[in-house]
Every structure is written in structure tokens, then in C-alpha cells.
């Protein structure tokens, strides 16, 4: 019994990491129909910049805020310099552009920082919390709490605020959005800044658990992408549920079946879900425009 609980706690922790990455995908996707494969690099930047500014002597909270701010700027630059000029390109080209950006950012990071692994202290110490024979480190609560807060924030943003609705309108029909007076250029800037900030926040929260190095972005982006697709791309609820589900699947497979094939089981389930629900768990079905 305590084993099951431990598997669940592990799954939720890891799942919250995936969910945070997946949530970062949703805003950009909602605003521009682009799946940003450089999202993992935002997470990496969040972690790495915090590590290096913290080592330089800045207090941790300040280092984290600085990392999030700088990463947001990188996000805005990505949109302005790489995606804005390629508006209307087919999906394949957009995938190549964002993968190119991801390779570029990674290349820059290994020059600016280094190729070592890093970590900074957990926010609330490392004393494990005991729950019915299972344990959890306090940092897990930060990660889980972060994922839930970001989810609530995004949900409110998209359903309750005018700006959020403007983002959705921009994605739906850019020209129409402009006609009703939405400043679509500003909306895009905002979306990329927000996505990058969420990615960086994820990096700040997870680094004490997962460690950070210049090349951790690819793996995180892959898992986050898979989680977002499982839940249905563009829907914050889908990102949260997809992330947690992926984490739980991995932990339970590792616990009860085979740790060697836990990633395989996760992908098989994704394939199976997409087979039954081609738009993911919470995705909206769309008809092709002729």
C-alpha cells in the first residue's frame, strides 16, 4: 500500500513537471497555431540563468525573477526574429524553425554557460514529508503548486479576461481580430513573453529536483509536447491532465511492470488515445478549410 502511494506521489511530481512544460506550449499555440519546439529551451534558460546569477551572489528569489524576465525577452525575440517573418508557412516549416531556434539557443547556452550539470538549493529545505509511509520532498509541493497555479491563471486568463479572449480571437482569424480593433502584434508579443515566462518558471521550480544542464531542454520539450497532445493541444486543462497522466503512467509502469519500458508504455498509451480521440482528450475537433 505504501508502495502504491509512493508511486503515485512520484508520478504526480514528475507529471507536474511535464504539465508545466505542456502549459507553456498552450499560449503560443492558442495565439499563433505554432507548436514551439523551443519551449524546452525556455525551461533550460530559466534553470541555467538562475544557477549562474545565484552563483554570482544574487539572492535566490531575485535570481529567479531575473531568469524569468530574461527568458521572456528571449521568447519575444524568438517571435519577432524567427516566427513573425515566416507567417503563413506550412506546419513542417514552422516545426523546422522552432527546432532550429531550439538548437540555436542550446548552442548559445553551451558557449555562454558551460556543459556541466548544476543545481541550486531547494526552496524549503530537503527534509522529506512523510505521508502514510510514503515520502515527498518539499520542492515537489512547489512544483505541483506551481503547475496548478499556472493552470488556474491561464484558465482565468482565457475565459475571463478581454486580453485572453483577444488571444483566442487572434488565433482564430487574425484579420477579423484586427478588424474588431485587436492589436494582434501586441497580442503575439504578449503570448510569447508569457509562454517563455511559464517555461522559465518551470525551470526555476524543477531544477532542485531534476538538475539543469545546457541540453536538458530537448527531453523536457518532447515529454511536454507529448503531454500536451495527449490532453489536446491548446487547452490548459488538457496540458495539466495530460502532464499528470503521463507522469503517473511512467511511475506506475516503473513500479509494477518494467522500469525499462516505462517511456514506451507512455507513448503506446498516447498512440492509443490518439487512435480513439484524434484530437486528444480535451481537444476541439476542427474541420479543414477548403
Amino acid at each position, binding site marked *: 500500500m505504501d*508502495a502504491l502511494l*509512493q508511486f503515485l506521489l*512520484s508520478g504526480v511530481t514528475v507529471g507536474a513537471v511535464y504539465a508545466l512544460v505542456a502549459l507553456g506550449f498552450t499560449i503560443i499555440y492558442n495565439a499563433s497555431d505554432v507548436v514551439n519546439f523551443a519551449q524546452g529551451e525556455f525551461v533550460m534558460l530559466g534553470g541555467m540563468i538562475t544557477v549562474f546569477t545565484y552563483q554570482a551572489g544574487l539572492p535566490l528569489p531575485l535570481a529567479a525573477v531575473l531568469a524569468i524576465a530574461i527568458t521572456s525577452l528571449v521568447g519575444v525575440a524568438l517571435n519577432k526574429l524567427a516566427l513573425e517573418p515566416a507567417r503563413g508557412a506550412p506546419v513542417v516549416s514552422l516545426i523546422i524553425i522552432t527546432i532550429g531556434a531550439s538548437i540555436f539557443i542550446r548552442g548559445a547556452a553551451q558557449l555562454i554557460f558551460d*556543459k*556541466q550539470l548544476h543545481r541550486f538549493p531547494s526552496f524549503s529545505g530537503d527534509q522529506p514529508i512523510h505521508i502514510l509511509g510514503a515520502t515527498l520532498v518539499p520542492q515537489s509541493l512547489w512544483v505541483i503548486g506551481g503547475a496548478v497555479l499556472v493552470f488556474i491563471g491561464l484558465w482565468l486568463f482565457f475565459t475571463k479576461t478581454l486580453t485572453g479572449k483577444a488571444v483566442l480571437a487572434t488565433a482564430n482569424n487574425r484579420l477579423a481580430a484586427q478588424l474588431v480593433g485587436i492589436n494582434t502584434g501586441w497580442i503575439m508579443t504578449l503570448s510569447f513573453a508569457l509562454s517563455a515566462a511559464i517555461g522559465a518558471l518551470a525551470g526555476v521550480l524543477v531544477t532542485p*529536483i*531534476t*538538475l539543469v544542464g545546457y*541540453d536538458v531542454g530537448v527531453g523536457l520539450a518532447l515529454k511536454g509536447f507529448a503531454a500536451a497532445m495527449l490532453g489536446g493541444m491548446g487547452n490548459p486543462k488538457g496540458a495539466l491532465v495530460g502532464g499528470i497522466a503521463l507522469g503517473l503512467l511512467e511511475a506506475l509502469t*516503473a513500479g509494477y511492470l518494467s522500469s525499462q519500458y516505462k517511456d514506451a508504455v507512455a507513448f503506446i498509451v498516447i498512440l492509443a488515445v490518439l487512435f480513439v480521440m484524434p484530437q486528444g482528450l480535451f481537444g476541439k475537433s476542427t474541420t479543414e478549410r477548403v
Partner: protein
Amino acid sequence: MKLFMTTAVSALTVLGGTAAMADIKLGASVSASGPAAFLGDPEAKTIEMMVDQINEEGGINGEKIDLVLYDDGGDPNKARTFATRLVEDDEVVAIIGGSTTGTTMSILSVAEDAEVPFISLAGAIQIIDPVHKWVFKTPHTDRMACEKIFSDMQKKGITKIGMISGTDGFGASMQAQCKDVAPKYAIEILSDETYGPQDADMTPQLTKIRNTQGVQAILNPGFGQGPAIVTRNKAQLGIDLPLYESHGVASDGFIELAGAAAAEGVRLPGTALLVASILPESDPQKPVVTAYKAAYEAKYGETVSTFGGYAHDAVDLMSHAMKTGGNDPAAIRDALEATQGYVGTTGIYSFSPEDHLGLDLSAFKMLEIHDGGWTLID
């Protein structure tokens, strides 16, 4: 940046054809970037530094070593291409490199075909067993690491263990070797778990090991972030069993990442390099490791690692062989094979036609982490 400059300069001399004919051309292909960068990065830096040192001190019998260094990014396909380039285009007389077993095996067949001596920096036993005429290696095999760990367990009366390994090349290879050699030390592996190289949490696997009846110790073959997370997770779960790590994490960075508290009492087989300062004065390796550590840390401002040490020994062995072999690949190979009692950072090498590794178990030192530092067990 420094690395880039020197590579650029050497590459320019190659292009310009200004290299004096007498220069001895040494080729290298290591994984300075990519997933194996923490092996290849210190290796590349060490090779650059050593060649510069040798040339500043007058070179080999008055001739300078002309280094051509490539970064294969850990990709075996690229490694083969660079090896071909070194042999066919750059016309080097010897090759050092192959940070991973995959890249080494790709370079190996090129070196054998071209009849150029090659010193590998990777661990797997299949590199030198069976012996390939032109191929040598400096790191211990992973099998020897298993044996060192198991003999320590034997001393402590441990007979039943749980194993948790990374699924990367290093972890998987050592996992297989440990399973293979365990019966020799009367060790029974009751639980055999794995984790992916980028996994964030290993508590499910460790919980399974904890719940396996009779487990007396945990062994974690792996490198990169995995072992640090395993160590932290074990502390989190409060598992009160001895933890053995592999030589793959034998660096100060590991203690930092795992945290001194969680890493307390962890044992692993390491080389003299890690414990340079606490080695007894009588130790023959003391001057070698102290000199290398001082030079590397002064030049690059980061702590030395075991992996850089492999490259140090490879360059040193090669340059010694070049003193007798000169510019002739076959003569360098013969001189390498005749090496006896060379003291390196990894151990004391004595090659023979049957043994192209030339190290025994005594080269490994069993270390224990105590108060955030290393202590010698034997």
C-alpha cells in the same frame, strides 16, 4: 574559446600546408559536445593542454606535435567520418579519442584498416577483448569497476543486492558486466531496475528495491544526473542501506549535485586523481596526479575529472611511444605495446601483446564520501 583558437590555428596550418614535414601529426576525435560532453569536454581540454605542454618543452625529439582535434558530438556515424578524415585526409600517425563505446567502435575499424595506432578513452571490455592489433585503451573496463565494488561488498559480508542502472551506454554496459561477474563474488542480484538518462524521479524503482526481501546494499551503475537523483531519492525515502556508485560519477561535481548530506557514506571505485591531496607521499602516482590537477585547474578554472585523466594518460603514453616510434605508425604501435610500468593518473600501465589495457584492479581505489569530501578506504 581557447579550445577553438588552438583548433583553428592547427586547422589553418593544415590547410595552408605550412606544417613542417617533420612535425608529428596526432589525430583526436572526442565528444566535446552532445550527450557525452561531460566525458568529451574535459578530454578535449586535456588533449589540447598536454600537446601545448609537450611542444613548449621542445616537442618529441625536437619535433612538434601537430594536433588535429575533431568534435564528434557522441555520434558514432560522425566519429567514423572524422576517423576516416584523420587517416585519409589529415594523414595522422596516431589517433586518440572515442569518448563513448559507440564512437570508439566506429573509429576502431577505421584505425585497424588503416593500420594506425588508436588509444580509446571508453570503458567497455569489447574494445580490448579480443585484442585488436592497433587498438589500446586507458580507462578501466566497467567489468573491473564491478569487480572492485563486489570485492568491497564481500569484505563487508554483503551477498544480496539491488541494482538500479541508467539505460545510457555507460549504465547498460556496466549493468550487464556486473550481472555477469557477480557470481564470482557470490553476490546475488535480487532486484534489477533501470531509469532513463533524463528521468527526474527514481523513487518508484528504489521503493521496489526497498520492498525486495533480503537486499543488503544498492548498486547504481550510471553517469550524468541519474546517480545524483538516485542518491537524493534514496535519502528522501530514508532507505538505510549502503549505496555504491560507479566510477562514472567519480568527481567533486557529484557530491555537489547529490548534496553532502545525501551522499554521506556513498562508496565508489575511483582513481588516484580524485584524492590527489590525501594520497600518501610514498604513492608513485602522487607526483603525476598532483601535476596534472594543478595544470588543468590553473588553465581552465574547473576541477579535474577522471575522464580528463584518461585523456592525460593517452596523450602521455602516445608521446612516450612517439619518442621511440617517431613518425611511423607501426613503430609507434610497437613502442606502445612495449610500454612497461608507465605511471599515469588512472593507474600504472604495462601493455603486452595479450593485454592492451595494461591495468589491474589495484589501479582502482575504493573511496567513500564523508563530510562532502573523499576518503580512502583501502
